[in-house]
């Protein structure tokens, strides 16, 4: 198995683990971390699978750079909302999800 193929498989495992965590946890920060791990896994698949057996490819790397920018801004927005939510409600999970 080539290294690129291995990256893709590791990415798939990360996505599966993170998806489980995202669905199970109610603590918003934990879900946010799960989202970031899932994003990392997706990026590994994006680059690994595209380069598998074809050599370096600039397009998926450019896509991943954009993806990282998007993920960072989404995380920042989520953290700001979460901080404000914690300040007003004193809880870390959303109303219908129960307590964490």
């Amino acid at each position, binding site marked *: 198995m080539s290294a690129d193929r291995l990256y893709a498989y590791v990415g798939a495992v990360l996505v599966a683990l993170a998806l489980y965590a995202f669905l199970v946890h109610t603590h918003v920060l934990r879900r946010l971390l799960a989202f970031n791990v899932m994003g990392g896994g997706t990026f590994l698949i994006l680059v690994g699978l*595209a380069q598998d057996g*074809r050599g370096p490819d600039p*397009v998926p790397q450019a896509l991943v750079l*954009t993806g990282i920018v998007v993920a960072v801004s989404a995380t920042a927005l989520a953290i700001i909302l979460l901080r404000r939510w914690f300040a007003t409600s004193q809880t870390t999970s959303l109303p219908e999800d129960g307590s964490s």
Partner: protein
Amino acid sequence: MSAQSLLPWMLMVPLSWATLMVLLAQQRDAITRVVNVVGALVLVGLSVALYAGVAQEGLAVHALGGWSAPLGIALRADGLAATLVVLTAVVSSACGLYAMTSERAARTNGKSAPRYFWPLFWLLITALNGIWLAGDLFNLYVGLELLGLSAVGLVALGGSEASLSSALRYLMAALLGSLAYLLGVALMYAAYGTLALPELAELITREPMTQLAIALMTVGLCLKTALFPLHGWLPPAHGVALTPVSAMLSALVVKGSFYILFRLWFEVAPDVVTPLAAQGLGILGAGAVLWGGWQALRESSLKMLVAHSTVAQLGYLFIFFPLAVGTGATAAALATQGMLLHVVAHALAKSAMFLASGTLIASVGRGGVADLAGVGRHMPMSLFAFGLAGVSLMGLPPSGGFNAKWLLLQSALASGQWFWLLVLLGGGLLTAGYVFRVFRESFLESPDDAGQFTKTPRAYDLFALTLAAMSVALGLASRAPLRFMTNGLAVMAGVQ
């Protein structure tokens, strides 16, 4: 200017106005108001010019910076994209003017308007235009994320506990949805080495990897379009947001992800998708029509009622799939026309209904349906706008909603799938039920209602009425826009 050279401006103008609004955040009201009105005029003007240009020259393609695919970003506008650009400009201008009026009303009452509304408002338009005009899967992803982030920001602007929790819930759903979509994009690129829509459409073959990619993207997009049973995030987000925000979210934002789904299924991969999967989407759509309608019927808050109605109306869009996949050319063409007309008619009617509801609530001072008692005498124009929008949502003739449902109904008959008829009829009855419920409460007379209604700006009704009238007028003149929208779509190839 040719349509081709207009394309980048459809993104540049709203993006520049978003930046401008950040810079002007500390300025006096009058300045931001003038700049916003100018922006709305420029946006509508450019959109109409693009529409006219595409009508004249056909498909317009622009390679940004002279870089062609795969490294460059191509913008494309066919009839459908140009129509949606105009729809976005019209609906968001009306909502923007409504927001300006309400800011002014808030200021005269000594209250402050939420900061950062305008940058987010313009960013939302940028993202929408980016999606309508995108020529490749990754550009669609960026548009989708930008749309989600600016929409979440707009929902959170309310600042209350409820708006914060709805915004967070919305953000979680949006993030999960776009990651599923991105995963599909990754598989597509690995399989075909390109993400440009026309190239993909030529290369794509029916194999397990592609089907997995399409499935992942479909699930992600359904989550973002709030398809039943993944709709849980929508009613709170659309229900608690500021009125013009609710209107734009329900009218335009949910259509963004649906538009990508349509392009994916019918332009990129028509040979990969299966009738079985389409039936599945149709059944979920039917579930949305009935469940959303039922929830709207039982809802006690007016804006939540309208938000549940959005869930139901989005269901109709998914009934389109079983009518168009694996059926004859005529049935597919009728279904496509019905679905596209429904997208436009619902956008106009639902934004009108949200604006009218917001006006009613502003007048009554409370948000419950039961609190509306007596409002019929004091706010006839708002209630008229609400009713006019309701006519289109129910699908009564003559309205855009009626023509859309009529086309879907004919397609159901043409493809021999009469059971979708029952869903269409049941959904119409439920819609009538919740619209008339609002009317019943409004015309009740309570003994002590004199003087407890706040006067609202006249302009409020003007915007709601204009949008509602347009959704009804669409029923009288739907042939030309329909022909333009469906021109060049692959799914129409069999009949044109």
